[in-house]
């Protein structure tokens, strides 16, 4: 079974984000970049699927040269080959998914794994958008997955419950944290990764449909008030909740 995994390089989740001088993008200076945390789950699920169904696992990212490092991490985890596509310009969910759909058609996998969202823009769009463009089935935010013969069954979290979904292959699976425990690359994997193929090309982006107006710091929260210490402070807190916040 041909398996494709989509990954993205993003600032580490503990980064402080500062708007850049243009007021529209963030200042990357001093930030540490990592593989998008959900994409680790996507790689892990792809490797598990390969173990059960055979085939090859290709990891793909649309990004700059720096992303080679993250692709090597995926190869070290056990992926077979990697593809790095240079976007050459800014992209949004629409233009990116159109480029990805074109590449999927070329590589012809039977299943595409991606993360449920990238933790930079928190868009959560690529999985279902791509499935829409390909007219494939999609399990968004997968919390469990079993792949059968031309079919899949999975669960996803919905508000206060879980949904059991059944679908047909080919499919796009967007992976959430509960799905699996991503493996760490071991030394042998890291050595092997150096010899695995990493192909480079350019992404054929569609036309974008979003224009960024501004990137701003979050709205300031009101000055905190420490109402007191220990159980004795409960009365003061209740007073605030009743009379100031009016939430009781």
């Amino acid at each position, binding site marked *: 079974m041909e398996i494709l995994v989509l990954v993205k390089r993003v600032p580490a*989740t*503990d*980064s402080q984000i500062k708007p850049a001088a243009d007021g529209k993008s*963030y200042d990357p200076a001093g930030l540490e970049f990592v593989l998008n945390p*959900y994409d680790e789950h996507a790689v892990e699920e792809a490797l598990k699927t390969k173990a059960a169904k055979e085939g090859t696992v290709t990891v793909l990212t649309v990004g700059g040269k720096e992303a080679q490092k993250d692709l090597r991490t995926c190869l070290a985890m056990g992926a077979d080959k990697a593809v790095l596509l240079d976007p050459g310009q800014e992209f*949004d*969910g*629409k233009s990116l*998914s159109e480029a990805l759909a074109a590449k999927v058609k070329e590589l012809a996998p039977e299943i595409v794994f991606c993360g449920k969202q990238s*933790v930079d*823009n*928190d868009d*959560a*769009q*690529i999985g*279902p*958008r791509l499935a*829409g*463009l390909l007219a494939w*089935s*999609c*399990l*968004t*935010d997968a919390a469990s997955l079993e792949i059968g013969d031309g079919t899949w069954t999975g669960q*996803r979290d*919905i*508000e*206060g*419950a*879980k949904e*059991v*979904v059944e*679908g*047909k292959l080919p499919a796009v699976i967007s992976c959430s*944290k*509960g799905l699996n425990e991503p493996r760490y690359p071991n030394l042998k994997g890291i050595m092997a990764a150096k010899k695995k193929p990493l192909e480079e090309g350019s992404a054929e982006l569609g036309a*974008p*449909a*979003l*224009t960024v*107006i*501004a*990137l*701003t710091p*979050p709205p300031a929260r*009101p000055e905190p*008030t*420490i*109402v*007191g*210490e*220990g159980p004795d*402070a*409960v009365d003061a*807190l*209740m007073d*605030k*909740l009743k009379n100031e*916040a009016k*939430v009781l």
Partner: protein
Amino acid sequence: MTNVLVFIEQRGGKIKKASFEAMTLARDLAGSLGGSTEALLIGDSISGLAPEVARYGAAKVYTVEGTAFANYSNYGYATAIGKAIEASQPGLVLFSHSAMGKDLAPRVAAASGSGLVSDATQVTAEGGAIQATKPVFAGKAYKSYTVTGTPPMVTLRPNSVTATEAAGTGEVIALDAPGGDFLSVVKEILAASGDKVPLQEAKVVVSAGRGIKEADNFKLIEDLALAFGPGVAACGASRAIVDAGWRQHSEQVGQTGKVVSPTLYIAVGISGAIQHLAGMSTSKFIVAINKDPEAPIFKIANYGIVGDALEVLPKLTEAVQAACAH
């Protein structure tokens, strides 16, 4: 093309509150655009819900009905929404950023090559341009966009608008139901036990972190949640206690858990790591209980109590119970 079309989410004949929030926003935007507010209901025998939607200002309620829509299917529902877009020719389609909205909106946007801003907390339509603002980097920054497309689309973060009623004519327009193979379908819903309030919909969320010391002490958190009365509060957890196996991942609040935006968030024994703040920093009021006065959670809390959670909780529960009893 100045109408605003709202996808109304229902499961088992019950409309989600977040859909009424979207209707409330849609009325405002339709006003700016000089169009009307329209709604779409999809499901099996759902036309009876139309008056409920009309109460929130729908001039027209499109319906797509049939047994094929009894169980949710992203492919089937997206196709049906495509039909409604053809009929309504809206200048904007609104969804809520719920599990269903997140699954559907990108698929619908792909079909029409539309721009989509997901998880928006604010949307405007001044001069006909649709602009939307959303938290990015888990709330560490906000990004504003102009959205284009035929039509542009937005998913709205639950609890960012207060739902209010305003009667609409609610003319029901039944659309032909698309048929064919839906590729995937929901087979079953495994409801959480009891009548628990879903975390993302609760008005009050009480969350615990490692500061509660042991798994069994979570009982104190559940007691506090219950004290607010039935159907009001839900319990959450930090990743530290999920990783420790004390609580399920479905209860985790934060960057790699759920994003909640309740009226009141009570963080008990949670340090306030940036990844936790990501899941709750847009809550209206935040209360923190922590024994360390330097804990970062106090920086974003409206009200803080410095102290041992295990001592503070029983007294707080008692006080809340007394205040909410009448």
